[in-house]
């Protein structure tokens, strides 16, 4: 458990930014992962007074506040309408309902854990991360960044552009994944990400006028398998992860084209 001296429930992002300049101060997400650390924190910065716990739909995007919980996203009708079961598939194995009622999207995005299902799912959609101070970066770029004292405010996902599907493999149902992958298609391009390698998901793209052409798509997957870096940890060896990557990509493809078929 971390230790904290002070607590500040901020009333504005400016206040949060100011406090967060100090390295020993930390922004509080849901607390589920943070509590497993042993940090000595000076001031805990709580954004829960800023109304960032809402999912809003505009004409061209979905905006998810950083304090929206994983479970909120899973059960949101707006999310379901726009992305079907994509996020449900991605989040459903994360520990349990109670955990997902606590863990926040902002905390997950900021943490960018190597095993993250959140990063691997968001990264294949047209996702932008809005940081306090006005900067907006793509999920892809944010995933590559070093940890800094930025504050995740909102997650913007473009509507209507991409259909996506998600697969993960876990040694047990509620464990963190041995490997996860997502695949999205916008009518022209395929976007594939393989995560929990045990490193974060990275996007590979392929020009793909005909998504039903599985031969071409599988070549693309084999290329991903050959070029992606995999690692070994307590859950699995890099050889196994490499083996699994192709299995999961093919499965997620099947799921995606089935969905496409349904849409037609």
């Amino acid at each position: 458990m971390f230790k904290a001296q002070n607590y500040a429930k901020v009333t504005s992002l400016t206040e949060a930014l100011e406090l967060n300049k100090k390295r020993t101060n930390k922004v509080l997400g849901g607390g589920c992962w943070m509590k497993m650390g042993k940090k000595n924190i000076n001031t805990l910065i709580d954004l829960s007074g800023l109304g960032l716990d809402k999912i809003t739909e505009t004409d061209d995007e979905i905006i998810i506040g950083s304090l929206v919980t994983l479970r909120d996203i899973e059960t949101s009708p707006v999310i379901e309408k726009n992305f079907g079961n994509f996020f449900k598939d991605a989040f459903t194995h994360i520990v349990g309902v109670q955990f997902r009622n606590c863990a926040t999207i902002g905390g997950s995005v900021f943490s960018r854990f190597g095993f993250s299902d959140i990063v691997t799912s968001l990264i294949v959609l047209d996702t932008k991360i809005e940081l306090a101070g006005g900067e907006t970066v793509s999920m892809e770029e944010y995933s590559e960044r070093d940890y800094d004292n930025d504050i995740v405010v909102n997650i913007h996902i473009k509507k209507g552009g991409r259909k996506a599907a998600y697969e993960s493999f876990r040694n047990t149902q509620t464990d963190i994944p041995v490997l996860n992958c997502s695949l999205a298609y916008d009518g022209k391009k395929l976007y594939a990400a393989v995560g929990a390698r045990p490193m974060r998901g990275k996007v590979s793209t392929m020009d793909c006028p005909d998504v039903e052409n599985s031969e071409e798509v599988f070549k693309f997957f084999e290329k991903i398998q050959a070029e992606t870096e995999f690692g070994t940890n307590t859950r699995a060896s890099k050889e196994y992860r490499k083996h699994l990557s192709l299995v999961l990509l093919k499965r997620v493809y099947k799921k995606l084209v089935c969905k496409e078929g349904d849409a037609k």
Partner: protein
Amino acid sequence: MKYVNAHIRKKDAMSLVTGKPVYTGDIVPQNALVVKLLRSPHARAEITDINTAAAMKVPGVECILTYKDVPNSRFTTAGQTYPEPSPYDRLILDKLLRCAGDPVAIVAAENEKAADKALKLIKVKYNILEPLMDFTKAIDNPIIVHPEDNFKALCNTRTDKDRNICSSDVFEVGNVEEALKNCDVVLERTYNTKANSQAMMETFRTFTYIDEYGRLNVVSSTQVPFHVRRILSDALEIPKSKIRVVKPRIGGGFGAKQSVVSEQFPAIVTMKTGRAAYIVYTRGESMTNGSPRHQMQMKVRIGADRDGRIKAMDLYALSNAGAYGDHGPTTIGLVGHKSLSLYGNLEAARFACDVVYTNTMGGGAYRGYGATQGIYAIETAVNEIAAELNIDPCKIREMNMVKEGQTMETYYGEPCNSCTLDKCMAKAKEMIDWDSKYPAKKLDNGHIRSVGVAMAMQGSGISGVDIANAEIRLNDDGFYTLLIGCTDMGTGCDTILSQMAADCLDCDIDKIAVRGVDTDQSPYDTGSYASSTTYVTGMAVVKTCQELREKILETGCKLLGIDKEKGDFDGEKVFDLETGKSVSLSEIGYASFEGHNKSLSASCSHSSPISPPPFMVGIAEIDLDPETGYVQVVDYAAAVDCGTVVNRNLARVQTEGGIVQGIGMALYEDIQYNEQGRMINNSFLQYKIPARTDLGTIKVEFESSYEPTGPFGAKSIGELVINTPSPAITDAIYNATGLFFRSLPIKAEQIALALAEKKDK
């Protein structure tokens, strides 16, 4: 019979399901000191200097103890009958640290924050030594885990600490080498099992205080209150008469709490400071420094005729005691006795073993207690020879299994009085529909459905060692107080023993008042382990109730003014057989509290010269995904012979729970150490016990035999039920893939990569 063999709700159930404060941690005195341990980061090291001055200055710190402050008497933390077979190889705190997490210092403070701060300020200089981590290289290794002179082995366990041998043994029935020579087929195989964590939901915890009589009171989540009293007295060098141990409700044990894991630390703090003290282990501590299952390597030679008659078995087991020998010399015996004895027609059998010290965490008692490992090895070897001979693995068992009426040569020569293993086999096959499912089917989605089988046995108490006492009193108005010293750890023994008492006394179960153990008040009992409670303590209860019945009859007849032979007792009244004139139990109760009568109570001891085995057959049906290697147990059929089933609900839940723990052992639970010898996966985040979505259905049926030496014909059930999943699942995986995996757990990775390799060839 009204209660025995019925579905009875546990007497304490409603307080548990409504969340009442009945566990150790719920009743800690307000002013208790918080006790925490500084633990060794090294697997093997010597403390060259330890400085607590800065830590002592933290406001709120009451005391800090190091190896300089503790008694120098070595003891074992294994909760066993004296003289314990486990060597005396521990101190409360030692200068030499033998595994990562070994305690270095004890801190007691007013609150958790102060204790945590003090832990950080203790300055320790370690002479870091190379650890001995590979137990297969332990014997005669230049690293000696226990170099100390005051090490002591009380029993003849062939201990040789200078060779890192905690114990060794060998027995042979017939001539194995000769018998193997005469077999058509002989297989030689090696099997490996890892340590497993019991992972009971309530971690280790204890609080202590000095009571109004100046005695040390120990309130602890333990399975062995009387052993705790004796062990603490030895460890603290204080008289046994000065210690009282109380066991509240326990949040699970599974053998973990058959060792003194947490008691000694608050106890010594209370002795030093006079203040109440409380320790609660974190999940991490419970996993790195608890009392897990012994890691083992087993070599099996098995020989059979071409027609499937198994003639000889030779089993050698190497067990990793880890840093301390708790339960080391005793668990190993079960590896042989409770696996080989499943087979009744062997011409010869041999079992040899060594238990060795290393610098991994010390082992302990975990449900199954060696039988689990031995049965995994022997049952897998039988499945391998069945495959070799192209015989259905159920059929080879039907041909060779032990039968009622046989003498079990490899089981201390005990008679097999009660055994329905044959019926269990038939039932389990029917439950899973073996004949249409064996060996495997390919599904449309590419997955493979397959089945696998195993048999198992255990004991019922430790013959000639376990002893139980029961006491029962008649109170005014005719209700009874049942006093027992065995510990209900959620298993329901308080209830099942009350069921037996109610049936013996022909009364309503609500007329039996029962409570948890208090060593000052409860009659002596070795404790709840070795599957002894129902069988051994149950018999003590039956005998005690019979004695009390006689006394009630005697007093009733006296009140009626007739000879004892002329009256009878029907549970509600004593009546004159001739006239029908009666005196009610309530009246007898009141009368027994009056001056000119005797108050009525009875007390009996029971121990058994034999330990009748319960038996079972388990069949696993799995769904295997050949691409990922993922195995799900979709269905599990268990047919169990535990003699008479005392409580149908509880026996069923014991079986289901044991099987799921066994599934965890077979497929997921995978203790790993890093290069420095620290356990990596010491949390529920990393050490995955089965969650409900990991499982399919589990079906349980009972094929009851009648054990003539047991209470109401009962035998044990608690441990037996963990033994079949590992070999049955291993067999099912073979039937799906054509590959035998010989190390547990069998993870998806091994299966997928082996299948991929097979495909490439």
